[in-house]
């Protein structure tokens, strides 16, 4: 649950300095995001996949879990919008 610490520190800092923080945070956020994705890619690239079938199985599971989630979110959440 370490993720709460930077989030809460950020929210509190942002709230305290909301009058002074006038500049747009979009660019630093984009740059950090690209670095994060790069380093996540490095970690994913380190995973050795020896059997092609394991890779295909994983892709099919990922695809259908995402598809199922999207369909049910539209089905259940669509009415509440």
């Amino acid at each position: 649950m370490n993720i709460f610490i930077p989030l809460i520190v950020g929210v509190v800092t942002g709230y305290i300095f909301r009058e002074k923080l006038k500049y747009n945070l979009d660019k630093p956020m984009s740059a950090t995001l690209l670095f994060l994705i790069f380093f996540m890619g490095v970690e994913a690239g380190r995973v050795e996949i020896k059997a092609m079938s394991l890779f295909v199985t994983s892709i099919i599971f990922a695809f259908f879990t995402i598809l199922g989630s999207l369909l049910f979110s539209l089905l259940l959440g669509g009415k509440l919008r």
Partner: protein
Amino acid sequence: MNFLYLVLISLFAGLLVGKYTSYEFGDLALLMLYLLIFIIGLEIGKSRGVKREIKKLGKIALILPLATIIGSLLGGAFASFLLRFPLKWGIAVSAGFGWYSLTGPLLAAFSPIYGVIGFLANLTREIFTIIFYPLVIKRVPKELAVSMGGATTMDSTLPVLVKFGGKEITIIAFIHGFILTAIAPFLISLIAQL
């Protein structure tokens, strides 16, 4: 240049560096994640009307994680059927909701193969969310498309969702990821012990 292309270039450059080099970056991924979460926190803190946003969310904050749970498990069951994969383990893999570092080790305690698939399938879910969320929101409402990321929407995929979906989806994405993160360990263990 479209930001999505930069995301894809970063991802594939990282994959190549990880695959073909032995450079060690230590905990830089984690540091970047914390930095991003801090920046997102700054955005929330300085923006006005957050209370109004939370009130406006109402039922959707609970319905969306429920939809993700049902959809992921049924999607996993369908994938099991297609692949002739044992149904129980297919549903257990899907119950990770993208949390690969949890699902892999938990399932590896029962079988190394299910552990590897649990790890890879959930890692792939996270990568697919990063790549396809910006495209999916052209057709699906951006707050409902948050369900793609499963448990990862409170941390690793949150920056991508906020970047492409707008900062107004931060709270729903965080609550969604938080609920699924709380449920996944219990659900995987429960299914695996059936």
